[in-house]
């Protein structure tokens, strides 16, 4: 649509409907269309079936990748899905959102051989989609043990934990703060990575094993203390993620037009009509992680004219992978590194721009150089990391925290309490990755099972 035919397209301020519905529908489709059966065969033929395969080592959930790819190549697609789900019951989501270019595909020997890894992520999606579309369940619940386990948070860690516990015959109750399950899979990931309500389908697929009861709108707090959970259950798994957001740390009042990127991403994911979501004409995103990229790209897809990611260190230090950075720049997002916010400019309480200061490393410490410049902006997004939020005060008297996260004492996520485990973003060595959260949830479930039954 030409600019002249839509007056909103280049309107200043934060407005909705910059793009027509047809353009929005196109913009928010699958960023990586799935492989068709022929493409999957061609891709699977490239796998060398390595011994002690580096891709498996690189996968936090240690999926037997050579085996599942070989199963695809021989026409046993459902068998491939079983191989995947055996290690990672959220293999469908991981196939979509894993930064494979820094995990399995980076380790692929064909990356070493010719710079073109086997497309493991897409093959994983091919197999898991097939199983989930046919609604094939591979796991049967074992005999009921009579043990009750509380899982806090219905995100990747909690779901993976709950599934493994349910498999072993335990009764699991998930306490979820929101009114909908999925955690970051549902609220924290760009729409174009997980279309067609996939996160909800996946929750249904995972919980279909039985023995998992989800209670919504049940955050930890005064009504639902950890102590109460411990009294009513044989074990507790904490996988509530990070609910808070870091502040920019600037002096003065925050003008209208400043927003948390995670909230924006969540709103987009929940919105049936993307055209109703307002977006600035000139948008600045502060941060350097996946959230910053998800936010910036989607701002562009909503019709923002200029989108700039401002990151305080070098581009190489960004948590967003080079692939993600490229995704951003290919969508017209500008990435500026070595800059930090200095001041938000406003008129009548409404944001008009942002002043940034150049930065550099001085004796390994990041400092402002004193030189500043300004960008016009009608909207600024904060994507500078998440915090434990209210959960910190809720939990600090009950178990050991470290650096605002839950401290764990072993690789399986045991906390300072003998009957409480934790995993995912909320623990001190959480990695902000779905796949890591899944691995931690699964491994805690194994530990809980051992403890209760061993």
């Amino acid at each position, binding site marked *: 649509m030409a600019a002249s035919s839509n007056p909103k397209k280049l309107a200043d301020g934060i407005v909705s409907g910059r793009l027509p519905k047809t353009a929005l529908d196109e913009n928010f489709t699958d960023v990586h269309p799935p492989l068709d059966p022929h493409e999957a*065969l*061609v891709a699977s*033929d*490239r796998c*060398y*079936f*390595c*011994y*002690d*395969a*580096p891709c498996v080592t690189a996968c936090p959930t240690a999926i037997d990748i050579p085996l599942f790819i070989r199963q695809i190549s021989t026409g046993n697609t459902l068998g491939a899905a079983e191989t995947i789900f055996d290690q990672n019951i959220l293999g469908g989501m991981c196939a979509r959102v894993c930064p494979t270019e820094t995990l399995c595909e980076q380790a692929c*020997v*064909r990356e*070493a*051989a010719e710079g073109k890894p086997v497309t493991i992520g897409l093959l994983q999606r091919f197999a898991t989609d097939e199983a989930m579309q046919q609604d094939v369940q591979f796991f049967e619940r074992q005999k009921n043990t009579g043990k009750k386990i509380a899982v806090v948070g219905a995100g990747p860690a909690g779901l993976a934990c709950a599934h493994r516990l349910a498999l072993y015959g335990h009764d699991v109750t998930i306490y979820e703060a929101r009114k909908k399950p999925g955690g970051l899979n549902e609220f924290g990931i760009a729409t174009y990575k997980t279309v067609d309500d996939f996160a909800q389908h996946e929750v249904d697929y995972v919980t279909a094993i039985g023995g998992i009861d989800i209670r919504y709108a049940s955050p930890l707090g005064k009504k639902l203390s950890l102590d109460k959970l411990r009294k009513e259950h044989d074990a507790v798994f904490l996988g509530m993620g990070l609910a808070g957001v870091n502040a920019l740390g600037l002096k003065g009042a925050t003008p209208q037009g400043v927003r948390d990127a995670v909230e924006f991403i969540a709103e987009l994911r929940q919105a049936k009509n993307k055209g109703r979501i307002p977006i600035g004409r000139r948008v600045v995103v502060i941060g350097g992680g996946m959230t910053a990229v998800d936010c910036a790209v989607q701002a562009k897809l909503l019709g923002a004219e200029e989108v700039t990611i401002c990151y305080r260190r070098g581009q190489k230090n960004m948590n967003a992978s080079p692939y993600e950075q490229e995704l951003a720049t290919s969508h017209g997002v500008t990435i500026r590194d070595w800059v930090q916010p200095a001041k938000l400019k406003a008129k009548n309480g409404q944001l008009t721009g942002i002043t940034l200061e150049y930065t550099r490393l001085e004796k390994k410490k990041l400092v402002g150089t004193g030189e500043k410049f300004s960008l016009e902006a009608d909207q600024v997004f904060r994507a500078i990391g998440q915090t434990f939020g209210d959960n910190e005060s809720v939990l600090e008297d009950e178990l050991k925290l470290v650096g605002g996260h839950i401290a764990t004492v072993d690789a399986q996520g045991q906390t300072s309490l003998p009957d409480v485990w934790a995993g995912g973003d909320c623990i001190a060595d959480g990695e902000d990755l779905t796949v890591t959260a899944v691995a931690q949830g699964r491994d805690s479930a194994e530990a809980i099972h051992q403890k209760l039954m061993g």
Partner: protein
Amino acid sequence: MADISNTFVGIKSPNPFWLASAPPTDKAYNVERAFEAGWGGVVWKTLGEEGPPIVNVNGPRYGAIWGADRRLLGLNNIELITDRDLYLNLREIKEVKAKWPDRAMIVSLMVPCEEQAWKGILPLVEETGADGIELNFGCPHGMSERGMGSAVGQVPEYIEMVTRWCKQTTRMPVIVKLTPNISDIRYPARAAKAGGADAVSLINTVSSIVSVNLDDFSPEPSIDGKGSHGGYCGPAVKPIALNMVAEISRDEETAGLPISGIGGITTWRDAAEFLALGAGNVQVCTAAMTYGFKIVEEMTAGLEAWMDSKGHKTLDDVIGRATPNVTDWQYLNLNFITKAKINQDTCIKCGRCHIACEDTSHQAITSMVDGARHFEVIDEECVGCNLCVNVCPVENCITMEQLPAGAVDTRTGKKVDKKYANWTEHPNNPSVVAAE
């Protein structure tokens, strides 16, 4: 520039690449397209005796096996000899030969094993001006049930008899096409020679069931739920063909008998290997049926380029050059000792060499060194078997290095003797002991 023009049993062609008797040479239209594409000659698809034309199945005739990326490795067929009228074929052969005098035109024949049948058809073929005939004693399917094709090729006495009938009747060179579906290829070759054959051509297709449909349990290609064995060809059969060519080439009784090499030839390299083992020219089918006639351009250009790079001026410089190097196992030099060597710079660390050696061979390749994945040959265990080279996905990453004379083989603790020594004189050979 190397000269790749070819003279085979007196038949001249601009290059040694003929199309084998098969579907691609069934009619003038295809053959002319082949000649336009640059093929040196054709063996016209087998003609049968006069009468009602042959009937083919009306369902699938071919089945295949594939490698990665669905690359066709083996093709199987149940098609019979030509199903076109004899006189239509003869007319077209005559026309095409007249139009393309510089190309070889051979006519493949298969008629019942009766003297009159053979002697009757030869004058008709001669009249076309064709350069020669090829006796189809090879087809393993269909016609063999009627006492023809490989049913003849499997009985050396019949081969000799029919060849003699033909030689008595025609001035044309007689090439006898052999079936590989036999235990020792030298016997039919000797019989052909005894019958007066000018040459043999081989191999025809290998009897095969290419696959089984696991839904309806029908062999494939499936005709209404049933299958019949077919003839297997394509890249997968090349090693079988090379061996049979070499066997005839080095057999004292058939030494010097011209051979037209057939079997899975897909590239110039394949062709050069057949020539080196004694084939005077080559015939191609599956490669053309997979990629079309244009592939001959790669074959001629590649053969010329290789000959130029090696200083071979004509095909005679190449033909049979590898034959003297084919020997019996007992004469292989047991003092030739090699060890595998992995180039760490090109190794991509797939680990296939390790697991192949560890699980199935000699436990001679590491998988982990100082806590890191690392694949290196353990000379003390390596018998030099070459399996690691064969399973490695990277060309030339693993090489077999010969231990020089005087070096110690750390596996046996013995010094490498520079002297040639084979099994016939080895102390462990009971025959040697018996002879003493």
